[in-house]
């Protein structure tokens, strides 16, 4: 299958990725090639085959419900680009002035 530039733009928007025009062109070609290759899976009849999400036959555990120390606020905020009043600082959600 051949992905169009519009489809690439749609995927990039879903993935929150800004792409240059060159990148859009390149990814349209490369992703199309890879998806063509992936289409060989259609050779296999899998209607009766259960999907494998995990290779191990296990159930997720719940931890014991008791207090334990977490990361300090300084540790959590320490890698952020911007903070203010002990919180992450972000640009305005709807645009306009900060």
């Amino acid at each position, binding site marked *: 299958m051949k992905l169009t530039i519009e489809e690439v733009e749609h995927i990039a928007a879903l993935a929150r990725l800004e792409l240059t025009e060159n990148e859009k062109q390149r990814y349209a070609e490369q992703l199309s090639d890879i998806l063509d*290759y992936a289409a060989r899976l259609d050779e296999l009849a899998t209607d009766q085959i259960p999907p494998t999400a*995990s290779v*191990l036959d296990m159930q997720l555990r719940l931890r014991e419900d008791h207090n334990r120390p977490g990361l300090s606020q300084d540790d959590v905020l320490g890698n952020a680009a911007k903070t203010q009043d002990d919180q992450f600082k972000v640009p305005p959600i709807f645009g306009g002035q900060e």
Partner: protein
Amino acid sequence: MTELTSLTVQACIDGLRAGDFSSVELTRALLQRIDSLESEVHAFLTLTPDKALAAAKAADDLRTSQPEDLPPLTGLPLAVKDVLCLEGVRTTCGSKILKNFIPPFTATAVQRLLDAGVIPLGKTNTDEFAMGSSTENSAYESTHNPWDTTRVPGGSSGGSAAAVAARITPAAFGTDTGGSVRQPCSFCGTTGIKPTYGRTSRYGLIAYGSSLDTVGMIARNVADVATLFQYMAGFDPLDATSVQLPVPEYTLPETDSLKGLRIGVPEEYFIEGIQPEVEMRVRAAITQMEVQGATAVPIHLPHTEYALPVYYLIAPAEASANLARYDGIRFGPRLGEGEDLWHMFTETRGRLFGPEVKRRIMLGTYALSAGYYDAYYGKAQKVRTLIKRDFDLAFEDVDVIAAPIAPTTAFKFGQHTDDPLAMYLEDVFTLPANLAGVPGLAFPVGTDSDGMPVGMQLMGPHFREDLLFQVGHAYQLATQWHESWPDVKILN
């Protein structure tokens, strides 16, 4: 005395215990070798010489003050792949988006070896977020293969494998999501383990493909890998996918006999297009094991050819979810914040992720998107079941499976960079083990006509790392390939 940088893990431990040298002497020797070779090999993204020497001094002091109750690996230096968190040390995942990220905690697998007494020398180079087969996708620099610095070391644990091969660390952590321990081991002539999924904790491993990621170890021989793996493996309550099974004692045979062992040789791994010398060396290694008493049995893993498309749908799908957390708010640099939140997200991610990471995020996003989920991701999960069943069936007849790791020996820089599909084909023999979750042991079995290493992998049933270590060790008792090391040429 033998040059300190040439020592194996076991020789380091023995020498430190016997007082032949101190941890400070050993660490200093390795740091000096790093100084002299790093400009050619580029194995490290972050070096921590001061921390390493301080830890070595503390280890030496502990040995003097508390000789009767020492942690077993006290004073042993090693390197950590830069996708594993190490508290207080820059951890970038080879990405600009985590430039200057300082983790506030340490990955469990690393912490266990720290508790056993090891000393980290620094963080080794990797393809960005462990996505790649050549370490060319690192946002910072490409690691060079110590056997021939015009060639790649493999990936994504290329920095770790190159560092071990160049004798600038006795061992190094690697991670293996689709072959990232085994393939660089093959390209660099080192020995490494990709464990059973769930055997080593993924806590503190910066996630790529959550149902595939494993934390492994690279060293110079099987005995060293087994020694280190003994301490790093095991259940971790902090990782929900960690398996609650006891870790057996990884005892190794004293003789090279493989009598009674049944080795499966899958026809699907010896395909057209494989470099003839790779096939020849792997088949010769199997013949060698027969000489040692094993029986080689032709087997079939009929869905092998589908592993590549399955992996390149499932792993990117998981990656697209895992990498959604890099948004410029909590970690790393931030771009495009002059307008609004949306612009900040897209510009930060669009400009700070590299081309391969963006390609996989887009592929995964597409495979999970409305209208395509069943056709791509759902279908891949079903075929993954068939691949896993192939292994289950094979292990009813044989003890281990022997196969090539990569179709070729180490290739030149830039050879596949314009053609992602060609690069992905390099992983064709390693991906099935990750999809089935089975362990794989990689070790050298010869060289090609250019003198480049050829590796072989042994795959075993879930949680049978012990068996892989026993077989690999017996082979290394009978052969010398693991004892060959490159003479790194300083070109400048």
